[in-house]
């Protein structure tokens, strides 16, 4: 049964706030804790680097003191995601998860599953499969397909969370 709330880790990357489903988080490290290698190994799992800022064309400052490395896994793929700042954990009512407006038509439909307001900020919900590089070459989900997904899963508003 679908829970009424979903948990997210909210992070900042450049001027954008983004959220990752909390169930995939395996750790949050500082640069010192992660070491200088590109890949991060923790509890026997190798997390390959994920340059979200470059993939999203976002100007991020990943040299600041608040930079964190989020170790993320969906069970198949494992990534070390560098973000400007960890903002916090949020339990979100599923009804407060909104679909990306249909005017957004291209790759971003694969990047983000939806959006929400958190502490009065717009937060974009990252699609973990895309973030972990599992969707390279996948044609963006059309608005029509997204609507069909919502119809098939009425408990999930906009397929967002």
């Amino acid at each position, binding site marked *: 049964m679908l829970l009424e709330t979903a948990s997210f880790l909210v992070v900042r990357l450049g001027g*954008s706030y983004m959220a990752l489903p909390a169930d995939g988080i395996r750790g949050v490290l500082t640069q010192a804790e992660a070491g200088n290698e590109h890949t991060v190994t923790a509890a026997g799992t190798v997390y390959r680097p994920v340059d979200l800022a470059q993939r999203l064309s976002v100007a991020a400052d990943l040299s600041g003191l608040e930079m964190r490395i989020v170790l993320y896994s969906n069970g198949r793929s494992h990534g070390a995601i560098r973000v400007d700042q960890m903002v916090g954990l949020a339990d979100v009512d599923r009804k407060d998860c909104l679909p990306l407006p249909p005017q957004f038509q*291209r790759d971003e439909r694969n990047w983000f599953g939806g959006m929400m307001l958190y502490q009065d900020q717009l937060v974009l919900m990252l699609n973990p499969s895309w973030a972990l590089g599992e969707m390279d070459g996948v044609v963006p989900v059309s608005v029509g397909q997204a609507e069909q997904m919502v119809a098939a899963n009425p408990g999930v508003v906009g397929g967002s969370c």
Partner: protein
Amino acid sequence: MLRTVPGQQHAQAVKRSWNVVVFSVGGMKLAARTEDVGGVSPWTESIPVPSRTPFVQAMLKQDNHLMPVYDLAARLSRTLQGDPLLCLVARHLDGPMAICIDAGMPSLETVDATAIRPNGRGDIETLGSVTIGENDVAIVALQRLGRSRQDAVRS
């Protein structure tokens, strides 16, 4: 002989004219049908959204409502003028969409439908153009703004 009752005459007169909102973007006068405009309010800072959709790369939060921003000024290669800038809400077929326009307060005009000419400009979706004052003004098709651009991008 058929005679027109006063009510019908009025209805025909209404059909023969369009009510439009005249606004400007970077000094360029544009118009939109009043029914395609959801409102005009002061512009507030938009929130960037990583996006590959041309001219749709931000959201605007008004009260607790979020709507996408269409960068009409960028599409027309214009620089917005005046301060404070204004937000025109377009009643787009896909949902409300915010457009930043020049600071000058828009005006309402009634134009004769027969005076609306086909518009050959390919840089923006229009319903035609009309002469208002001494200006040739394009009537922007706010409902489908960006759609032909999307189609062109896709094909």
